[in-house]
């Protein structure tokens, strides 16, 4: 880890923060919650506390902006720079800025939080079924008032739970109208507008009047982004218009036509050929939680780390079940010392209020949005054992590998362990899903990285990387640089210096585990080096420093000098069955 030159840090522990404005990409409550969790990442391991204030000067001022946004360090449009923050101190020091030309989500794509309806503010579930049809965006079908809505479960037909989608016809953010919806048409600067506009602003935010005449009443609010709002292009925030015409053809969905980079786009008027108005369609976006947690690390005095898996590593990568890396913990505790650990939080109260219907008066809504409290996980129980599955009765294991010094035998959702160190014999059957959530029942191969202790699993052309129960993946093995000729990985041999040989068919690749790419010059023929072992081995693994190739009920054992020194029975030698 690194701290800033001069070890800049706060001289008090009870820090305050204030969110100056909000991105139209996400509901305000979702952004607030993401920032709260991002601060909790650091307060969980230090004596620091973070309190949100809503007016005045906070230690950490948070804002969204695009391009030049007032601090002399301009952002750069979509992608590229995502955010930045300043080290601790007064004024702009400690502040965090987020590029609002990015598409902010929770990292897995569009997050549409609903309001009103009967779903308690739940998010849309895409796709959902309504009157037998499937929809992947908010719709007005079934309504006469043109209000956008969605189901918050997979089937409105079955569950009847729904909510209203962000729309300027439902509410506005900020401004001076307490969330009142837009009034169309409205008069601004003498002209009549019947949609949101960026006219009159230099920051590109879309706004509208909340009365019929802005020139007269000066009442306004910012428009929330609809679910089909485009990112970038030349009409950021405007919704796609379907169908639209492009090069004479009609499109009723986003398309990558006309582009070489494959990015999906749409027109924001009905005719791109004449109007030339366009933008990119929503993609996975960037997790505001992960980026905020990183920037708040800077706000607290941490500089960039060179540990790839650390939160303070400068490049973005999405992680599903986030856990603070040891490098980050050491860094922040170097500055602020240890904390007493996370505070116990009560389980989330069950909703008791009745869902609200849509208000008749704009702005008088009272929502029953519940703050989700994270319930602490019970400490892990040892995995339950299924004695009915006896490893000695199994044939053709899906995969065999050594993890933490124990041989693991995988078969159809279950696995057994055998430790040559402990004379306890074979243990199990355990459930793969319990130990490695998200893995398929049938895997092809696995190996444990000697350096990081992470476990790599392969099934078909996909692979997962587990740190404990936390997984990255599935990802396609193309990402490792393995071509289509590898239908499945049959085994792996750890070779030291961060290299692992991956076998498939009669070939093997050498994987650089650190950069997760295969070295140049591979694949190579297995029998060039490993002569005398079956070329159609079902399992290949390293055990007690020797290479094991298994086929049917036999294994061939090879020394590091590539000499086969034993052929034996898996059942009697490796499992030591009676």
């Amino acid at each position: 880890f690194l701290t800033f030159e001069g070890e800049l840090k706060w001289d008090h522990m009870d820090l305050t923060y204030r969110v100056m404005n909000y991105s139209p990409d996400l509901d305000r409550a979702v952004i607030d919650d993401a920032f709260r969790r991002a601060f909790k990442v650091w307060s969980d391991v230090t004596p620091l506390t973070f309190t949100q204030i809503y007016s005045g000067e906070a230690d950490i001022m948070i804002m969204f902006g695009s391009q030049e946004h007032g601090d002399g360090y301009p952002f750069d449009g979509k992608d590229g720079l995502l955010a930045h923050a300043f080290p601790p101190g007064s004024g702009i020091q400690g502040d965090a800025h987020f590029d609002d030309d990015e598409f902010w989500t929770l990292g897995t794509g569009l997050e549409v939080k609903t309001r009103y309806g009967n779903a308690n503010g739940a998010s849309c579930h895409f796709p959902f079924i309504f009157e037998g049809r499937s929809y992947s965006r908010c719709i007005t079908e079934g309504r006469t008032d043109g209000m956008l809505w969605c189901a918050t479960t997979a089937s409105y037909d079955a569950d009847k739970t729904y909510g209203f989608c962000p729309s300027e016809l439902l509410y506005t953010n900020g401004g001076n109208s307490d969330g009142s919806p837009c009034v169309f048409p409205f008069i601004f600067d003498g002209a009549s507008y019947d949609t949101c506009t960026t006219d009159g602003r230099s920051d590109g935010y879309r706004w509208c009047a909340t009365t019929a005449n802005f020139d007269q009443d000066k009442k306004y609010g910012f428009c929330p982004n609809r679910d089909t709002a485009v990112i970038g292009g030349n009409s950021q925030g405007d919704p796609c218009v379907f169908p639209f015409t492009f090069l004479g053809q009609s499109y009723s969905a986003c398309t990558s036509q006309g582009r070489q980079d494959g990015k999906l786009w749409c027109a924001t008027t009905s005719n791109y050929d004449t109007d030339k108005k366009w933008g990119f369609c929503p993609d996975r976006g960037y997790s505001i939680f992960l980026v905020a947690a990183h920037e708040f690390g800077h706000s607290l005095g941490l500089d960039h780390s060179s540990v790839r898996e650390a939160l303070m590593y400068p490049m973005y990568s999405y992680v599903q079940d986030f856990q603070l890396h040891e490098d980050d913990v050491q860094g922040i505790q170097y500055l602020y010392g240890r904390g007493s650990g996370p505070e116990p939080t009560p389980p989330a109260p069950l909703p008791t209020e009745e869902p609200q219907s849509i208000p008749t008066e704009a702005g008088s809504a009272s929502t029953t949005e519940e703050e989700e409290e994270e319930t602490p996980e019970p400490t892990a129980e040892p995995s339950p054992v299924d004695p009915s599955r006896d490893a000695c009765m199994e044939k053709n294991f899906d995969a065999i590998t050594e993890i933490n010094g124990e041989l693991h035998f995988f078969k159809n959702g279950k696995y057994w362990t055998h430790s040559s160190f402990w004379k306890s014999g074979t243990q199990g059957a355990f459930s793969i899903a319990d130990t490695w959530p998200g893995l398929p029942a049938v895997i092809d191969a696995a190996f444990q990285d000697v350096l990081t202790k992470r476990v790599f699993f392969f099934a078909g052309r996909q692979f997962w990387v587990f740190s404990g129960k936390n997984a990255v993946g599935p990802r396609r093995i193309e990402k490792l640089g393995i071509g289509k000729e590898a239908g499945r990985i049959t085994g792996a041999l750890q070779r030291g210096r961060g290299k692992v040989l991956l076998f498939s068919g009669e070939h093997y690749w050498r994987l650089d585990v650190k950069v997760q790419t295969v070295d140049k010059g591979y694949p190579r023929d297995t029998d060039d080096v490993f002569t005398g072992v079956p070329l159609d081995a079902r399992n290949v693994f390293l055990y007690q420093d020797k290479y094991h190739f298994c086929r049917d009920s036999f294994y061939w054992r090879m020394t590091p000098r590539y000499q086969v020194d034993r052929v034996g029975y898996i059942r009697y030698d490796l499992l030591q069955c009676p």
Partner: protein
Amino acid sequence: PLHSKPQAVITFPGELLSAPSDVELAENYLLRFGYIQEAEVRRSSKHVSLAKALRRMQKQLGLEETGELDASTLEAMRAPRCGVPDVGG
């Protein structure tokens, strides 16, 4: 079905007509994130100073230290990231 006619590729309004070259991308990146200073670029030959700065960046970001503008280094330079410089204040 195969497209009946070849796909048209157009330049969308607001998009750069030509993407920066790899070297331009590298120079901007190394300057922006503190791996090289303006004066350094002016003072020594571009190739030498770039190679040194590239090696420093590759080491900092855990890439293979080649000092060359190889594929993984270019990919790293195009990756979305934090705007705080990696070196210096």
